[in-house]
């Protein structure tokens, strides 16, 4: 029998490898094994973060990036969810929309960047549009699939027990599709960050991606690495949030 980790050990173990990497990175930088123009030391990155934070620059970049991410996610997520819902429930809607959506889905949304820049310039609109487009499809597919694959026996039972219309939907169909929908949400959170990073790196005048591209012009390695670390932290944060809702809403599944 393997010993089970409890309390502190359980909290600490997932962070052991990141800490170890950080520590060796720091030591190797001190020793001069890693030259600072290839990769600055963690302390230098931290220092850059503190400096940018004190000027308020970092806060501005982060808040604009978060806003783009959230706005794009909400718009794309809502459209994807509603389309998935209608196509999952209504046969006519499915016939009308599904083929078109499946065709659009296979176009890499980042390939639209040149077009989007011409359409919307490099303003907020272009970033939000790209994020929304990227987020839409994973949520659509998983909502649609989730609703389609709700146990037919349970739906029949609901009907036989007098549930109809909205009641049938909220008692049986939606909860039955929820775990699949949340898989879509989690996946689309990844797409959300990816899209935002690319969009901000290529065309922006604010945001974390812009900060990194701007730093490249001045060879500020520490700021570039700081931007990458920030993306990693935000990625982890959105995963934690998604997990929280999964645990909350799918408790019966554990």
């Amino acid at each position, binding site marked *: 029998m393997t010993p089970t980790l409890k309390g502190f050990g359980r909290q600490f173990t997932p962070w052991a490898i990141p800490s170890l990497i950080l520590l060796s990175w720091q030591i190797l930088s001190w020793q001069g094994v890693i030259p600072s123009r290839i990769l600055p030391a963690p302390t230098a990155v931290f220092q850059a973060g503190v400096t940018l934070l004190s000027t308020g620059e970092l806060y501005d970049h982060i808040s604009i990036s978060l806003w783009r991410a959230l706005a794009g996610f909400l718009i794309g997520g809502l459209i994807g969810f509603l389309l998935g819902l209608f196509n999952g429930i209504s046969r006519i809607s499915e016939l009308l929309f599904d083929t078109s959506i499946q065709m659009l889905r296979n176009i890499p949304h980042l390939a639209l960047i040149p077009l989007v820049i011409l359409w919307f310039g490099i303003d907020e609109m272009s970033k939000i549009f790209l994020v929304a487009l990227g987020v839409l499809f994973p949520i659509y597919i998983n909502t649609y699939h989730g609703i389609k694959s709700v*146990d037919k*026996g*349970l739906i*029949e*039972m*609901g*009907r*036989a*027990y*007098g*549930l109809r219309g909205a009641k049938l939907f909220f*008692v*049986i169909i939606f*909860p*039955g599709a*929820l775990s699949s929908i949340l898989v879509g949400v989690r996946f689309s959170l990844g797409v959300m960050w990816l899209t935002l990073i690319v969009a901000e790196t290529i065309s922006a005048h604010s945001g974390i991606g812009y900060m990194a591209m701007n730093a490249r012009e001045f060879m500020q390695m520490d700021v570039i690495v700081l931007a990458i670390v920030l993306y990693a932290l935000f990625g982890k944060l959105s995963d934690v949030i998604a997990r929280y809702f999964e645990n909350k809403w*799918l*408790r*019966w*599944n554990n």
Partner: protein
Amino acid sequence: MEQITIKIEDLQKSYNQLTVLDGINLDIREGEFVAIVGKSGCGKSTLLRLLAGLETYDHGNITIQGKKLTSLNRQARIMFQDGRLLPWKRVIDNIGIGLSGNWRPRALEALKNVGLEDRCDDWPSKLSGGQKQRVALARALVHEPDFLLLDEPLGALDALTRIEMQSLIESLWSRKEITSVLVTHDVEEAVAVADRVILIEEGKIVLNKVIALSRPRVRTHQAFSVYVEEILDRIMGRSNDSDLRLVSKR
């Protein structure tokens, strides 16, 4: 004599040219417990689903309480072989499905009747197969239906749990005498709970046997096993001259 509450006349049903039910005629009296037995694929489950109004029939007539059944049978509650509890609802909320108003006390009472009141806040996944079916039974009975339709509800349970459930069904039935139809492949189960056993073969009723035994039924009685053997012999196509066999046994 009680009133006839379900009248089935010349009922026919087929799926893609495959005839499943071929001219079924059957009257069920109010308060009667009828068991339908037969080999798998004989059409017994289809008959029950037609009675529940979950499927439509091609020809013939089903009359429920004097009215022709054309859609969902709202006076009936069906209990399925696989229970069909909602995994995302706690036991008590599963029983409350389709109820409105202040249903909680009623649901608790129903749960108490099947002996599971202490499990009311559990998730269905924490229950054993037999407990799940008891919850499903409570869920059907809490609606106080005029008809209870049981679609092989004990088919997936082990033999001991099955006997326990059979006596539970029998005792709950005798309290209220809800008109009940049980579909099963277990002849002993049919004889243990039903007033009348119907045997269906290839979509036709070939045996309609009144079980004249007092309740609660005692399996060890000789009369009980005579009924079981007679029906079994008929299903297996063995000699159905039960009188002769009785003589030779003695």
